[in-house]
């Protein structure tokens, strides 16, 4: 087993190909001759009936080429992932502020915006459903024909009450999690360019170009072959650009006008109408024996999915499946509900529901350790899943990474922190770490020299990989030796900064060089597009690297054979591979899991209640490292995003209206907030496993967030129940600790 730190990963990265420069241009920079500009009229109401939309005045304005509303859509057409319920333009009813109602295409952006003002909409305002509990209460207005309960889950194993009866310690908690905003710097936009031959080319950042093409074909009533989608590179996505955003309206207007149309969202439009992370209410009752053996775990989840389904049902399924965490239980019950509300739309976001339950669970595990007077790492070690244990729903899974090895590295990080605490800022010089590893906070009065209270915490998670049963789990790719001798990979997977293209180059280089006929051939990768490229399914759920590794392994020998048979240039081969699937009688379940541990050090300011996350040590175990540069980037990048989730970020809704419209009201971590990051990566094949590398982009985030939350709990002497942790709560908690101190 090799444990790699940052320096080792950096050395491995630089010993390979030179690091790629950033994409010079993004899809929003593209233009086309005769370009028209689109603008969208959006709902000012969280919930209202549309009595009429009058487009006539807008259509007559100079420079306006088209104006459309929901009545221009094919009857019954809806967007969505598995549940399709979202019209590209509102039909009859709007269900969230910012929902598109009408759209225009004009010569200039100004003319398009002016035309919006000439559109007349008559509304009948309907009652707002602004909280998921209320949405499910009897008598709540139904937002969709099937009612407000979009999805529910239930899993039960063992005799829960008898197990609780034998527990010496039981902790009950409620944790609510924030509506985190993706806040990718690149806003949603689409450029739709009609061809002379009845085709359409759509350039728009997305995580699944083939799925977008399929949806656009249905929307236009075309065969998919007439549409090409270019979806990479993306200027950040984190799940948020998996759903259709600006593409549908741009395509409708371009086809109607017979001219290229660009629709570029503003930040305010993105904040109102873009996808969000699902806010959760997680209730847990958890018990263990006096000597720290976990027995019983009772979990209920309530998720606010907003106005439309998007990935909501899959997010709940994933959250549900991750509620048992990395531990063995004698008895377990998990029940989840997903409610429609008028609070925007929640969809896919890195971590995908597992972040929320993992954070609540790991807080709960620490609270239980405190209650039982046990060391949190030793407590976890006592209860870990074994390498051959079944999955959380009892399903067969690929062998797990060695969780004890992960915990050993978390323990090492703790020892290192005790020996040399991270003092990133000079004003912290007055605070000192405690000697008790289980608890390090001080309860002394807040004199200036003791302003900073340090806290340390750990976490351990397992995280599923790829989609559950039902997929799409198959993925295709195409490899060719072109006339110019360049070997080109064409794959529909996306590059959004996670390093897919770098991983593709590294995997290809190694595989090509192992084939005498192809060794040393120059490489080219064409990524995230439909043109002459088979579907690989979406690049999400941490499946990209895994699929890529399999595709390269399948394609390269095939190309070598084809090239040997044909001296001629321009030889192409295709292959299709699949993620492993499993089966479960208890609903969607995953076949592969990776693991990650984390150790966090924080300083809490007694005066202001603010948290500084000083340093996070990340301990991933996801099989062999494919691309050291991309791997390290994912680990380091997860830290600020996780810290944001725990201490900074939330977009609250009040009566169905979000309280921020831009990055002044919704803050994301800056360089000044960014914690130091240390890495102890377990870089080794997983024993007895042929499932190839797991992804790293989500498992790290899911471990880092609860480690930070536990460090805050350590400093505060109390478990936070509302994330992000508020300064007011922290000050109160610290005061209470100080008063209770001897």
């Amino acid at each position, binding site marked *: 087993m090799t444990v790699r730190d*940052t320096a080792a990963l950096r050395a491995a990265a630089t010993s390979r190909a030179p690091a790629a420069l*950033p994409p010079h241009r993004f899809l929003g920079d593209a*233009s086309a001759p005769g370009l028209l500009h689109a603008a969208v009229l959006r709902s000012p109401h969280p919930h209202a009936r549309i009595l009429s939309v009058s487009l006539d005045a807008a259509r007559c304005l100079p420079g306006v080429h088209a104006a459309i509303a929901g009545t221009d859509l094919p009857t019954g057409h809806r967007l969505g992932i598995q549940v399709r319920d979202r019209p590209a333009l509102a039909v009859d009813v709007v269900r969230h502020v910012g929902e598109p109602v009408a759209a225009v295409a004009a010569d200039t952006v100004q003319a398009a915006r002016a035309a919006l003002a000439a559109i007349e909409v008559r509304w009948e305002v309907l009652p707002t459903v602004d909280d998921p509990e209320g949405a499910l209460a009897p008598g709540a207005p139904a937002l969709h024909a099937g009612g407000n309960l979009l999805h529910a889950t239930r899993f039960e194993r063992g005799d829960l009450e008898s197990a609780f009866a034998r527990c010496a310690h039981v902790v009950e908690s409620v944790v609510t999690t924030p509506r985190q905003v993706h806040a990718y710097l690149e806003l949603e936009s689409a450029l739709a360019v009609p061809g002379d031959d009845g085709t359409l080319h759509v350039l728009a950042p997305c995580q699944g170009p083939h799925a977008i093409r399929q949806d656009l074909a249905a929307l236009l009533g075309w065969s998919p072959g007439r549409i090409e989608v270019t979806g990479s590179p993306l200027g*950040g996505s984190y799940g948020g650009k998996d759903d259709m955003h600006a593409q549908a309206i741009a395509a409708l207007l371009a086809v109607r006008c017979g001219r290229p149309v660009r629709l570029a969202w503003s*930040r305010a439009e993105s904040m109102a109408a873009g996808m969000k992370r699902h806010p959760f209410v997680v209730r847990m009752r958890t018990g263990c024996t006096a000597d720290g053996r976990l027995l019983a775990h009772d979990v209920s989840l309530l998720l606010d999915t907003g106005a439309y389904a998007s990935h909501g049902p899959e997010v709940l399924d994933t959250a549900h499946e991750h509620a048992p965490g990395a531990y063995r239980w004698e008895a377990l019950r998990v029940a989840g509900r997903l409610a429609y509300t008028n609070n925007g739309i929640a969809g896919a976001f890195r971590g995908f529901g597992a972040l929320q339950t993992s954070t609540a669970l790991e807080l709960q595990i620490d609270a239980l350790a405190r209650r039982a007077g046990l060391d949190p790492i030793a407590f976890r070690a006592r209860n870990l899943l074994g390498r051959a244990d079944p999955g959380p729903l009892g399903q067969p899974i690929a062998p797990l990474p060695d969780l004890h090895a992960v915990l050993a590295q978390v323990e090492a990080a703790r020892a290192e922190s005790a020996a040399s605490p991270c003092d990133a800022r000079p004003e912290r010089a007055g605070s000192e770490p405690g000697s008790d590893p289980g608890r390090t906070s001080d309860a002394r009065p807040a004199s200036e020299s003791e302003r900073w209270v340090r806290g340390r915490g750990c976490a351990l998670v397992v995280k599923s990989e790829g989609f559950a049963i039902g997929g799409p789990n198959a993925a295709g790719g195409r490899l060719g030796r072109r006339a110019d001798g360049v070997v080109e990979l064409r794959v529909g997977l996306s590059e959004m900064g996670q390093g897919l293209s770098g991983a593709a180059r590294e995997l290809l280089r190694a595989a090509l060089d192992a084939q005498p006929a192809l060794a040393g051939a120059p490489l080219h990768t064409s990524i995230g597009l439909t043109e002459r490229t088979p579907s690989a399914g979406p690049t999400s759920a941490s499946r990209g690297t895994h699929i890529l590794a399999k595709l390269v392994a399948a394609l390269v020998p095939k190309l070598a054979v084809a090239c040997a048979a044909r001296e001629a240039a321009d030889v192409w081969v295709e292959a299709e591979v699949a993620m492993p699937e499993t089966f479960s009688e208890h609903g969607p379940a995953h076949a592969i899991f990776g693991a990650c541990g984390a150790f966090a050090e924080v300083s809490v300011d007694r005066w202001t209640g603010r948290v500084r996350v000083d340093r996070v040590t990340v301990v991933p175990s996801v099989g062999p490292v494919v691309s050291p540069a991309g791997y390290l*980037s994912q680990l380091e990048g997860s830290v600020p995003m996780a810290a944001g989730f725990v201490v900074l970020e939330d977009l609250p809704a009040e009566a169905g209206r979000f309280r921020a419209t831009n990055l*002044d009201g919704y803050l994301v971590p800056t*360089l000044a907030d*960014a914690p130091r990051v240390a890495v102890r990566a377990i870089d080794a094949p997983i024993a007895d496993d042929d499932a190839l590398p797991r992804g790293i982009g989500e498992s790290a985030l899911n471990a880092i967030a609860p480690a930070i939350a536990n460090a805050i709990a350590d400093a505060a002497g109390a478990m936070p129940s509302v994330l992000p942790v508020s300064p007011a709560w922290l000050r109160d908690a610290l005061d209470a600790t100080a008063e209770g101190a001897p």
Partner: protein
Amino acid sequence: MKRAFVLDGRPVELVTAPDTRLLDALRGPLEATGPKPGCGIGRCGACLVLLDGAPVPSCLVLAARLDGAEVTTVDGLGEDGATILRALADAGAIQCGYCSAGMTVAIAGALRTVPRPGPDQVLELLAGQLCRCGGYEGLRRAVQSLFG
């Protein structure tokens, strides 16, 4: 209304309304797409340019004040720009790369406005440049390699 100024070292003329944002003028008629739109309120730094040598978000500058000015985007930084971008890439500071143009301009601005800046000074000047991929550790390494 006509404005004459210097963009990335070449003289340009721009006919536009005085309240046109520099960002829109650059990305529209002037076809300079180096500066990226991000927030429109000067909070993210993606559209940063040098205006007479000083870093400013181009979303907050109006065309009306451009007459006689010198505007430098990431594409007009010459060797400085190439060196900074290479340092960012080598340090692992680049993920999606959308913030890189603004980051590069910000670092070049530090070079031009602060005499012999040290790494801490530069890092302070970069606090307004958001990187949502969270490449801040890489950014620290890049600044160390350039200014350490």
